[in-house]
């Protein structure tokens, strides 16, 4: 079974801190995604990557950056955390669209910025 592992289940950070959220997948998937989920807003795509060192902005990239130095790892970086970035963050991975395969999600990181 594909496993997508997010490094922390819960995280509490202070305003202004630099925050790293790590995601690792073990199935050699090309695509990796970062979403945030807030009540009433559903899942919103922050960034995605379709290959090592490749990244594309999603719908809400402001205040975030990403890093994909190795195929299995996709990091989300909050350069200077703010309280409006308090949210549930979900990482996912998948094969390319032409492979008719599903997304696989991690269990999420609930980040609180105080």
């Amino acid at each position: 079974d594909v496993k997508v592992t997010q490094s922390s289940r819960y995280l509490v950070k202070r305003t202004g801190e630099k925050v790293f959220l790590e995601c690792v997948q073990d199935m050699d998937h090309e695509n990796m995604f970062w979403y945030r989920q807030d009540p009433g807003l559903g899942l919103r795509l922050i960034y995605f990557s379709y290959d090592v060192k490749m990244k594309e902005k999603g719908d809400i990239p402001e205040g975030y950056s990403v890093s994909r130095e190795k195929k299995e790892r996709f990091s989300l970086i909050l350069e200077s955390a703010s309280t409006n970035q308090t949210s549930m963050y979900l990482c996912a991975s998948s094969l390319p669209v032409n492979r008719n395969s599903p997304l696989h999600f991690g269990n999420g990181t609930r980040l609180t910025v105080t």
Partner: protein
Amino acid sequence: SQQGEEDPQALSIQEGENATMNCSYKTSINNLQWYRQNSGRGLVHLILIRSNEREKHSGRLRVTLDTSKKSSSLLITASRAADTASYFCIKRSQGGSEKLVFGKGTKLTVNP
């Protein structure tokens, strides 16, 4: 983007009843996928249906696809309290972007 729009936004039923939720989309697809999310957890893949398929089953789940109407339905039969969750659809298009955007989902509550 490859967004699916789920309908209704919320659904409340009694245990044992069937639950039906719908997904509409706007452009042609390669496949459409349904996911479940239990509260506070990641999403779990339920069923993938390809564009040349009309119906697919998995246990108590039945998914239909009508490409002429650009819509799909997820039916959960004989629902249980454990089916309480949010359900999302997403479509993937051949030659489309790898960018995957989810709708807000259908929040299903099954009352014991």
